[in-house]
């Protein structure tokens, strides 16, 4: 019998070595595998390279890992948020290396790693400082820049439901980077709210097939989802959006699933 489930988050992150590259799913707090990150903090691996769309917000989750001084480098598209003070401080102090990647190139580079593509020509970033020094080519009259895959030893992903074969479905926009990261890492670790018996998931609707998943852990309802500030919205100049702080002040209540 194949059973990829492990008893708890500590077992899920066991064996992660110092110096590893770790992809962490999520776009802001949606899809952030908070329980796995907390376990990684306990686990102790350091000198890590983290691949995430952001670079942590508030003082929990990825921000807490950064605050512990465990991260050497962050590869992301949008570190600056109104509550990214942990990243901001470390970056300004020169204690964190940053590789800034346009969000679509980040997603596609991760996808390329999982799909065995050696490199690809993208139109995004051409003529900007984020493409400086990269190979350019004109194809059918349009200019493209060559981008390479981003691989990782580990991916930490947050899904909604899974079975013991590691098939995963997500909830709404928490899907974001999960599916491409799951395919791009040597060892993919997925937390879900709920582990279901094999056969419970509709084969037409499985988003991440189990072939990409190595360890699954059920973490139950994510309590932090229902508490306080989960958003980190900023305007184009990096200032917090008014309604973000409103959301934070009133707290949030999880909508009943359809």
């Amino acid at each position, binding site marked *: 019998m194949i059973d990829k489930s492990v008893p708890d988050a500590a077992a899920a992150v066991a064996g992660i070595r110092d110096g590893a590259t770790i992809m962490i799913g999520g*776009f802001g*707090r*949606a*899809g952030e595998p908070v329980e796995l990150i907390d376990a990684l903090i306990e686990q102790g691996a350091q000198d890590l390279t983290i691949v995430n*769309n952001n670079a942590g917000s508030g003082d929990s989750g990825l921000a807490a890992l950064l605050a512990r001084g465990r991260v050497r480098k962050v590869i992301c*598209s*949008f*570190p*600056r*948020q109104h509550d990214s003070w942990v990243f*901001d401080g470390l*970056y*300004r102090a020169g204690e964190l290396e*940053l590789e*800034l990647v*346009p*969000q*679509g190139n980040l*997603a*596609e580079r991760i*996808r390329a790693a999982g799909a065995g593509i050696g490199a690809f020509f*993208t*139109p*995004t*970033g*051409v*003529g*900007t*400082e*984020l493409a400086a020094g990269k190979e350019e080519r004109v194809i059918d009259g349009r*200019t493209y820049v060559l981008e390479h895959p981003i691989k990782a030893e580990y991916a930490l992903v947050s899904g*909604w439901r899974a079975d013991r074969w590691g098939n995963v479905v997500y909830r*709404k*926009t*928490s*899907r*974001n980077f*999960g*599916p*491409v990261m799951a395919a791009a890492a040597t060892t993919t670790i997925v937390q879900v709210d709920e582990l279901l018996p094999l056969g419970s998931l509709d084969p037409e609707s499985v*988003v991440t097939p189990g072939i990409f998943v190595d360890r699954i852990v059920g973490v139950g309802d994510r309590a932090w*989802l*229902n508490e306080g500030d*989960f*958003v980190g*919205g*900023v*305007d*184009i*100049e*990096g200032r917090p*959006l008014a*309604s*973000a702080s409103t*959301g934070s002040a*009133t707290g*949030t*209540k*999880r*909508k009943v699933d359809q």
Partner: protein
Amino acid sequence: MSVSEPKAQAARISREQLAARIAQDIPEGSYVNLGIGAPTLVANFLPETLEIILHTENGLLGMGPAPEPDLVDPDLINAGKLPVTALAGAAYFHHADSFGMMRGGHLDVCVLGAFQVSERGDLANWSTGAPGAIPAVGGAMDLAIGAKNVYVMTDLLTKTGESKLVEACTYPLTGVACVTRVYTDHAIFDVTPDGFAVREAFGENTVASLSELTGLEFAEIEAVQLS
């Protein structure tokens, strides 16, 4: 780009008026991405009787308005990380598919903020290049090159009175020759092969007064060639 207190000035329309004006130019059936910040205001002025499908790059087509405060779903947010809803007919997808939609030219319109737009349609909106600033690009570069029509929504002038329409951008670029049209508080400008053309001037503005404000000469509107 933001003005804390709009001055009474007949030559300018308010940000809400500008959002409403942009909304008028979006036909039914369009697939539209509204950038974070001021462009999200445009959604408030899309007529409810028309079906216009909003894309948010974090994985949703058919995005609806903000939820009632007691129905916030932390797993359902927009690119600005604010809670939203999903309409009947919506679809979720992952990030690579979402940006493939942009890069592949499937969106009809995106509306973005700007620090500067150049005469050839270069956009600068992700970094002022200020020393010590934390850089962050997000999806700006993908959006800039990814829609059939890239509309910029911005004040014409900075707080210190400098024109955001320029001959060549001095801020770091987001995309090259990518902007289709610029909606400002003074006028609407098309990007043409001959530079900016005044498509519509608001209130007291004239081509001459706009030329004075920006220091630019404008192409004849007859020369407009929209993509």
